[in-house]
């Protein structure tokens, strides 16, 4: 019923448009052009062209309306259209809406490629658990099985449970035959992302290409022997010379300030005791001791914050490095 009424409506609009065009052209035709088209004037070329132009214009309008009319009986929400629109959205990186279209399509049709793309869309918008579940549905597809298993491992990895991920890799559950090296390499990469004990270096480097080995070795050493500063050392340094511990942890301004503040208060205390002002002496002395102790404590805390900074920088560098190279996983052709 809807289609029929749509056709009727578009027909009415068309008739209305035609009527308008005719009304627009009519006065010109009736007055000047009838004269222009008359037999005598037709010999004059310019008048003839005028007449022709108006006709061409008229037919042009007529056909534009005809050409741009749409068929009223096509279903925009058919399964095929859903798939097409989903593919379009996927190519535009609009993965949230693409997933919606694929889901609607998969309610009607069973299609491994669409299911794979649905899972991939979910993976790319960080819905890792759902993505992994959908990849499982394509595990036994003839063409896409290996790719689905690879992406399943990627989803597990990006989901963040690195210990569980490594267990899955070691048990070789659903291991893709084609990409077993890549998956094992991903297992090695996951050691950089959490606090587990690193494997042996030869085992680690075995899976990486020679071209990136230097970089991976650097990361390995940074992870194994991070350039931390010892909080105890910082505290002892500050106990010997106030502020030295802070300078050791890289906070030179704080160190100098601590030295100046403690030194000044200690000097004031001594000076006041010498002059016989005992109350002032105790006051400044107490403050000097307070700052001295606070600075020792603060040096240790500062060393810890420095270490947290080192850890933060390392994590960021590693994440950016591997993310940029897609974790050394092969790119899948039909997703481009």
């Amino acid at each position, binding site marked *: 019923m809807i289609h029929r009424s749509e056709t009727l409506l578009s027909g009415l609009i068309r008739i209305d448009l035609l009527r308008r065009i005719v009304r627009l052209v009519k006065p010109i035709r009736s007055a000047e052009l009838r004269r222009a088209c008359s037999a005598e004037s037709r010999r004059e070329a310019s008048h003839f062209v005028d007449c022709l132009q108006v006709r061409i214009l008229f037919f042009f309008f007529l056909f534009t309306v005809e050409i741009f009319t749409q068929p009223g009986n096509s279903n925009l929400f058919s399964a095929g259209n859903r798939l097409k629109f989903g593919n379009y959205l996927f190519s535009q990186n609009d993965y949230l809406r693409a997933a919606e279209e694929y889901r609607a399509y998969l309610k009607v049709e069973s299609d491994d490629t669409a299911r794979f793309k649905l899972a991939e869309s979910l993976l790319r918008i960080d819905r890792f658990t759902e993505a992994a579940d959908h990849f499982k549905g394509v595990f036994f597809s003839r063409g896409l099985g290996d790719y689905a298993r690879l992406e399943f491992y990627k989803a597990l990895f990006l989901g963040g449970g690195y210990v569980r991920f490594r267990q899955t890799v070691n048990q070789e559950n659903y291991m893709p035959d084609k990409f077993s090296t890549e998956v094992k390499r991903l297992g090695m990469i996951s050691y950089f992302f959490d606090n587990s004990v690193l494997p042996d270096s030869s085992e680690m480097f075995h899976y990486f290409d020679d071209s990136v080995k230097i970089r991976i070795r650097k990361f390995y050493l940074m992870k194994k022997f991070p350039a931390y500063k010892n909080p105890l050392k910082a505290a002892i340094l500050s106990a010997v010379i106030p502020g030295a511990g802070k300078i050791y942890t890289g906070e030179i301004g704080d160190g100098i*300030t601590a030295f100046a503040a403690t030194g000044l208060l200690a000097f004031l205390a001594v000076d006041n005791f010498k002059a016989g002002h005992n109350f002032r002496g105790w006051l400044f002395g107490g403050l000097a001791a*307070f700052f001295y102790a*606070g600075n020792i*404590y*603060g040096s*240790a*805390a500062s060393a*810890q914050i420095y270490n947290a900074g080192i850890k*933060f920088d390392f994590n960021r560098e590693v994440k950016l490095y591997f993310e940029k190279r897609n974790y050394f996983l092969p790119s899948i052709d039909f997703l481009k």
Partner: protein
Amino acid sequence: MKKFFALIIFFVVVLHAQTDWVRWSGAEISYEIKKQEKKNYAIGNASPGTKFLSGIKNAYYFLISDLDGDNCPFYPSCSNFFVASVKETNLVQGGLMFADRFIRDLNPIKGLNHYPFYSNGKLLDPPENYTLIFNKITYIPGGIVVGDYDSSK
């Protein structure tokens, strides 16, 4: 004909005209003072020690801070840092944390990209980072602006 074209051009210009307000995406100026720290004047009743400390804190608020205004360059402010650190740890450790904070506040070049900025323009320096427990530290690189930070978390 000239008039006709002039009229068309005039309307084209007028229809596409923008005021400076639109062109430079102007915004209403708000004179509201954002995100001032709230002072807690309640006296802690947990022990005589907390009562005594709350008394000192309230005396400081009443006699100095309220008159001096919101002048601490840090968030949380030094007095709130002291209260929070004592709550977080104990009186002795909280006192040491406060002494350290006081020295860092004395440093004239503390604003040089060492601390992150809180959204009210102050240097963000939460007391949890100084408890000597490594896992409690939330490291934020210096110089960047942190939109919202809930110190109660």
